[in-house]
């Protein structure tokens, strides 16, 4: 494992980006597999021939057609059946493990923000090995298949997976195990590679995000506005808040509102900040250098609120701003984009409630 990690580090120049490390991993595995096949050609038949698949799917009576001249079949491996079974089983199970390791890494990567389930990670490694073993054992025997089902029926467990994607991971584990069990590791490898890259790309570009989803501002503006509005405050009676909150919650909210008050400024005066600029970029340092001079020129006041760094997908910058009356949201975005160019992936401005009210007046 250490050797593999070092090899990956060599290939990725020590980059922590998951995409690069994944590519490096598969390159290392491909090189090792090529070496294995070069020095031990028998491994090709034992792992990649699909011999088992042929046995299972082909009508048993139909014979393979041989070429009409010369030697008609590659040389037999010359291994005893038991040794061959042991070697092929070992290679298949190791191959399954090698192909599922990156899947578990991808699972852990994309679950990092929400927290991943360790049991699923371990299941992803173990399940395909078990499935491959089952397929190897059952072979073509109906009796064995039912016996095995009967034995396993004695073991009961039920698990509810919280995320549909977790189920897909489990299905992938089964598919890889199945493919390995019928000696078509090529299919298992392609499943692993394509699954991982599709998943990483969809995570990197946030594929499937509903663009009509309300922004944070819009999501919270209305309920918080209602609570703060003296006229409509009665619509959320205090008793509901008493029921909903504990003293700890109230204290936490109090602290939080104090921080927000410090940012917005005291009542009776214009708020210090009334909008948020969100920038996503691969190189946040370069993006900052490009964006901040624009803010100096285009907005009355600004401060960098938060930097969120992500591995493998663009990092995020959040600026609190007080917009000038003379500058519109679109003008600001145009200025930012023209100054930063390709340095940023996206720029978005969320207008604060005070600014929206001013605009309405």
């Amino acid at each position, binding site marked *: 494992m250490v050797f593999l990690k070092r090899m990956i580090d060599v290939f990725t120049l020590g980059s922590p980006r998951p995409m690069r490390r994944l590519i490096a991993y598969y390159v290392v595995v491909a090189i090792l597999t090529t070496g294995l096949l070069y020095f031990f050609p028998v491994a090709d038949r034992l792992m990649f021939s699909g011999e088992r698949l042929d*046995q299972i799917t082909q*009508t*048993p009576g139909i*014979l393979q057609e041989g070429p*009409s*001249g010369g030697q008609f079949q590659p*040389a037999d491996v010359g291994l005893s059946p038991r040794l061959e079974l042991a070697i092929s089983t070992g290679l298949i199970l190791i191959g399954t493990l090698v192909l599922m390791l990156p899947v578990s890494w991808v699972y852990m990567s994309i679950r990092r923000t929400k927290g991943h389930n360790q049991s699923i990670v371990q299941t992803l490694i173990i399940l395909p090995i078990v499935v491959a073993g089952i397929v190897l054992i059952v072979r073509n025997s109906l009796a*064995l298949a039912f016996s095995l*089902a009967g034995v396993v029926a004695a*073991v009961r467990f039920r698990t509810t997976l919280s995320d549909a994607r977790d189920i897909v991971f489990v299905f992938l584990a089964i598919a890889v195990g199945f493919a390995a069990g019928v000696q078509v590791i090529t299919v298992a490898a392609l499943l692993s590679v394509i699954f991982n890259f599709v998943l990483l790309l969809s995570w990197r570009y946030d594929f499937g995000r509903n663009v009509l989803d309300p922004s944070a501002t819009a999501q919270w503006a209305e309920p918080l506005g209602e609570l703060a509005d003296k006229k409509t405050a009665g619509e959320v009676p205090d008793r509901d808040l008493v029921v909903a909150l504990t003293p700890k919650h109230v204290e936490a909210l109090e602290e939080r509102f104090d921080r927000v008050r410090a940012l917005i400024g005291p009542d009776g005066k214009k708020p210090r900040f009334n909008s948020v600029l969100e920038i996503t970029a691969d190189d946040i340092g370069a993006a900052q250098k490009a964006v901040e001079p624009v803010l100096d020129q285009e907005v009355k006041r600004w401060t960098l609120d938060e930097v969120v760094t992500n591995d493998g997908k663009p990092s995020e910058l959040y600026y609190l701003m007080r917009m000038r009356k003379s500058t519109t949201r679109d003008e600001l975005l145009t200025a930012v984009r023209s100054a930063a160019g390709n340095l940023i992936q996206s720029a978005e401005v969320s207008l604060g409630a005070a600014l929206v009210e001013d605009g309405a007046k």
Partner: protein
Amino acid sequence: MPVLVLSLCLVTLGCRPGGKQAGRPDGDSSLLAGRAARVDSALASSDSGQGGDKPIARWVLPRHLAEISGLALTPDGRLFAHNDEMGRVVELDYRRGVVLKHFLLGNAPVRADFEGITVAGQRLFLLASDGRLFEFKEGADGARVPYTVHDTRLGHECEFEGVAYDPAIEALLLACKNVYKKSLVGSLVIYRWALGAGNSEKLPPLSIPLERVIGSNRWKGLHPSDITIDPRNGHYVLVSAQEEALIELTPSGEVVSARSLPGGHAHTEGVAITKDGILIISDEAGKSAAAVTLYRRR
């Protein structure tokens, strides 16, 4: 989980036509029809003088038939083969490359050094290298058939390697691979075992000096692997794995031809000739996979 495992198992098995008779698959009919058409076409082009000694078809046998030994044709033209070490007989469709059925001798697996098979009317015989003959009748697919053992008591005279039925004399021909009897050493020996209505009996062997058989070939000896009868002229045809030889004799022992087998036969174990002149040769697995090869016999 049990459901998952059961599903896996059933999917694994799902593609197998469990109740369907092996070798008669509906879904593969076009493939098999194509094969039969190609064999017919190759036969036709061979008849027109093209192709030379090129095989008209070759079927690679699965691992459980790696030790295929003898071949035999029934009077209605069906081909049987058998395994070397176990009393297991398979029926092959040699025109389409299909294993049609298999059956076993005895309820408990019969193990012997089986070297040849032949069909005499409704009776089938397996020959062991020590001269024992196992008589049985054809069984259904997957059946276990009863058998009777006849000991020819010739095991001390010869190591047998092939058997054929000569209907002209109603006798089994037992080809001798290695001759132990001093008076017969240096000869190609074919024992004859008459199949009477009741008891079987030994007939005088056919013995031909090896030099007459070998002729101008550079073989150091001759060790037949199997023997068959050409149904078109009643000649005896023998093959030898060691010398890669194909010999044709008249029933009286005249050598008609002695030549090398066409290329690509490393381990020839069986031979059969159909009524329409197709030479069928079986090779057990060695450096190559086991196979059945078809040639046009001229």
